[in-house]
């Protein structure tokens, strides 16, 4: 039975991996079509993907948006998570519900709302709207991973510092913040990856001038059928896997995602 279970798990893992592997293999096709089994071997689709203008600007835009949105959400999220974890205040439950709500609301609804709101404010499809939409979307994940980190900090450490005469600001700066550092790094990375990948809401709020990489890729798939998209996917998969392996090595992916509780 154990063997049958292991076989089942292997099959499921193969199902999860298969599309990515197939895309990587297809990227080396020599012809201008996607077909299996591929014929010939060529790097030219990688060359085309790397030189394709929309992918280049899309990549730069995505890096820009992800960097700002994840930094903002970690700053905003850590302050809010700290206040909500340590203080009681009026409206706390409402604030928390509002910040976590985007998890349960379809991204197309959030994208549509951001678009209408921006149009009403005369700010249609500029960078602030794109970045704000991303902050709203990644903040729940940042909060979730920061709560876990905050729970793991012994409150007695802060109390000890307070009783030794440190002022609250100094306690946060010298005790809480250093202890929270791995959680902040994990939350930042998590937010950056999610923002980099965000697609549906971005499709609503970006224009040709502000389109991010996932939007550029979506438009490419709709227009062309050559393996360039497979090539950019292969690069993307490689990059993501490296980042995940590093994140797992240094920060513990299981801890960031909350799939471990340390007792096992």
């Amino acid at each position, binding site marked *: 039975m154990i063997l049958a279970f292991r076989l089942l798990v292997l099959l499921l893992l193969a199902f999860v*991996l298969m599309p*990515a592997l197939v895309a990587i293999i297809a990227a080396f096709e020599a012809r201008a079509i996607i077909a299996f089994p591929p014929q010939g071997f060529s790097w030219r689709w990688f060359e085309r993907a790397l030189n394709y203008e929309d992918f280049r600007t899309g990549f730069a835009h995505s890096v820009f948006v992800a960097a700002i949105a994840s930094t903002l959400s970690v700053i905003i999220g850590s302050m809010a998570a700290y206040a909500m974890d340590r203080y009681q205040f009026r409206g706390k439950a409402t604030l928390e519900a509002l910040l976590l709500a985007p998890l349960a609301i379809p991204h197309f*609804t959030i994208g549509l709302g951001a678009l*209408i709101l921006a149009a009403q404010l005369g700010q249609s499809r500029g960078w602030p709207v794109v970045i704000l939409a991303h*902050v709203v979307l990644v903040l729940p994940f940042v909060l979730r991973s920061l709560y876990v980190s905050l729970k793991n900090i012994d409150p007695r450490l802060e109390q000890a510092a307070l009783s030794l005469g440190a002022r609250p600001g100094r306690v946060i700066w010298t005790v809480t913040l250093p202890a929270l550092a791995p959680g902040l790094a994990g939350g930042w990375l998590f937010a950056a990856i999610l923002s980099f990948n965000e697609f549906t809401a971005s499709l609503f709020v970006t224009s040709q001038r502000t389109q991010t990489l996932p939007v550029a890729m979506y438009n490419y798939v709709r227009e062309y059928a050559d393996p360039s998209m497979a090539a950019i996917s292969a690069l993307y998969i490689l990059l993501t896997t490296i980042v995940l*392996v590093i994140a797992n090595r240094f920060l513990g992916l299981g801890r960031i995602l909350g799939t471990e509780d340390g007792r096992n």
Partner: protein
Amino acid sequence: MRRPFLFWFISPAALVAAGFLLAMAAVLQYAFLAFIPGELQPGGFTLQNFREMMKPLYAGVFFDTVKLCFLTAVLALLAGYPLALALVRARNPYVKSAILIISVTPLFLGEVIRTYAWIIVLGNRGFVNGSLMALGLIDAPIPLLFTRLGVVVALVHVTLPVVVIMLAAAIAHIDRDLERAAAALGARPLRVFWTVTLPLSMPGIIAGLTTGFAWTFSAFATPQLIGGGRVNMVSNLVYSLGFASFNFPFAAALSVAGLVLTAVALAGFRLLLRPLHKVGLT
């Protein structure tokens, strides 16, 4: 305890929350405004958008979406459970890491790349048909792309990582002494799983099912590209109404209805699963 910095700490988050709330209010407001063809500015108050939605064309898409989401959530749960169990119970840290990374990688690839990869897998000259034809098992390609089956398979793949995370979090919290006690009392592994592990993981099952449903409801690129116009979900309808016909009020009304529908479906899940939860003696 005194609350130094409370105001400064929550103000930025409150601003973000307010922005989100305003965006949702804008959708709600637009849902009740009249669409004037050829005009980007909507007209006055009307209920016409919601009346329009009762038409079989739109009601059908809603019905279809709910069916697809439910089917996908259940299949993702069935596929995700063994993965989550293996992830939590793996003793070898390398095996554990490998299962975790493989299970969540799709989440970090985004919907576009995953959907594109499935196009290569399912296409007429794609991986499945190409392999079957090379093996001589079929003579002509089986249509997989632009079919419901193709959409469901790709949606399960998209939804699986979240379900695995939800389930793993719940399974990780099960007290293993309970399983050990059952085993010590003579229960065989399958019985231990069936009478102890599975019932105790019910919160994760509920969370996985509801999140899977909501997550699938949110899918856009997968039904759009794999469905190729033949399988439409609410998300596709909202987008095409907005950007092909600029009928933003109707798109907003569909979004509102979609939200209400998801909320009702999620509440329904919880109610339906509550008796099960009780039978599970948790």
